């Protein structure tokens, strides 16, 4: 494992008028690490994710990303087209609602194949094979390769979205409440899958969630946000077992015991 961080966020801030949606956020992320950002609605965690993923422009700070060619780019100051190109190729994004991350009008195979076709793949059989193997990987029957996403359950749609996000093997994946809105048993299966994929592929993940159980299961590290600021950060087990900040203690104690 190389020593240079994959992602370095430095004093990131986003303002809407007088209000700071997020401020003074700094952290480094290394390959293979899963960082969960937890907090309640309005804490700024989703804003932070969108800033890292190039969907929002920050008002202050830097988002330094080590690209596949080894060069370090500050996403905050990168020009629009270059930013989108980089993000499309090297950063995966999993939305809370799978329909936001899928093309509902084309088949599952086409959904998974599109990112590699966009990257230049031009052999139909090879594309189809790659799509089929990813379908298997996310535990959807290969026979459903030509089905439309509308024919899938919510949990399957989410797994399809994950396959589409990972097919180009991005080194950084951003996830926004990937298990939100799913039935509990479906959530559980999805978490298992995510855990396995993250381990197998060695990807770095920034995961936004309000569910501490998800954070404990998936994350190595945790950042707690409240009103746009990071109030506590450290190892996931450390924060959950020995919370220091009053807000963190409140969050942890609010979780219903199994």
């Amino acid at each position, binding site marked *: 494992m190389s020593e240079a961080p994959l992602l370095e966020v430095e004093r990131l801030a986003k303002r809407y008028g007088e209000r700071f949606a997020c401020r003074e956020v700094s952290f480094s992320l290394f390959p293979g*690490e899963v960082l969960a950002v937890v907090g309640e609605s309005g804490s700024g965690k989703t804003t932070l994710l969108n800033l890292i993923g190039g969907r929002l422009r920050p008002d202050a700070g830097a988002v330094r990303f080590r690209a596949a060619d080894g060069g370090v780019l500050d996403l905050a100051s990168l020009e629009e087209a270059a930013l989108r190109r980089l993000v499309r190729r090297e950063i995966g994004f999993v939305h809370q609602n799978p329909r936001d991350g899928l093309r509902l009008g084309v088949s599952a195979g086409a959904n998974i194949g599109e990112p590699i076709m966009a990257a230049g793949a031009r052999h139909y059989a090879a594309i189809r094979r790659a799509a089929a193997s990813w379908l298997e990987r996310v535990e959807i029957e290969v026979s459903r390769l030509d089905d439309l996403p509308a024919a899938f359950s919510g949990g399957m749609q989410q797994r399809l979205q994950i396959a589409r996000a990972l097919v180009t093997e991005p080194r950084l994946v951003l996830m926004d409440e990937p298990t939100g809105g799913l039935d509990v048993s479906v959530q559980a299966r999805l978490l298992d899958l995510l855990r396995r994929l993250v*381990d197998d592929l060695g990807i770095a993940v920034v995961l936004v969630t309000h569910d501490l159980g998800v954070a404990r299961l998936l994350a190595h590290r945790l950042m707690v946000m409240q009103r746009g600021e990071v109030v506590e950060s*450290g190892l996931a087990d450390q924060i959950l077992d*020995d919370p220091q900040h*009053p807000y963190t*203690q409140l969050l942890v104690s609010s979780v219903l015991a199994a």
Partner: protein
Amino acid sequence: MSAQPILLEVEGLAKGFTLHAQGGVRLAVLEGIDLRVAAGECLVLDAPSGSGKSTLLRALYGNYRSDRGRILIHHRGAKVDVAGAPPRLLLELRRETIGYVSQFLRVIPRVPTLDLVAEPLARRGFGAAEAYAKAASLLEALALPERLWPLAPATFSGGEQQRVNIARALIAEHPLLLLDEPTAALDDENRDRVLALLVERRDRGTAMVGIFHDAVARRKLATRLFPLPERTLAA
């Protein structure tokens, strides 16, 4: 005979808890703890219940955040302070140098036993075949029936779960092991198997810090006792 290398040095460790939800009341649990453990030593924490033994172990593992003091671990040829280590370094320490056997298996649901035990080796870069082979031999040494290996431990008995726990902690052969009542849930036969494994590790040079209420375990494993003062509640 040359002295064994010191693998763990604790200096002036202090740890307390501030309960903000209860008006900020502060519990001071550990104060001024100094200790050293060398390779091949098993230090047993000797103190009554509630004295902070578990707290100390968790602090050594970086699971609890220390208030003051240093926890120096011999890692990759240098001394690393757990107390101030950044997350990345702590994760590396846990992967390579410090192992932890807790009292209860934190069940990661739905993962088969063999996979659970093999996982720490997979994280260290071992190939699947080798990792599974080592996992299998450990589980055999702990007499966990083979028919249980493909199953997730959630439905196992307490004793079976604990043996999975121990196998998972031992497989990576960390130079420093922290043990919190590893044999508490085991019957005599299994306890003896586990102790035999631990003694073997200790004699091969593993340094250990442990909590054992069981007299047999103490007798077989301990090379030294470390007393902790009784906990006082701060005002």
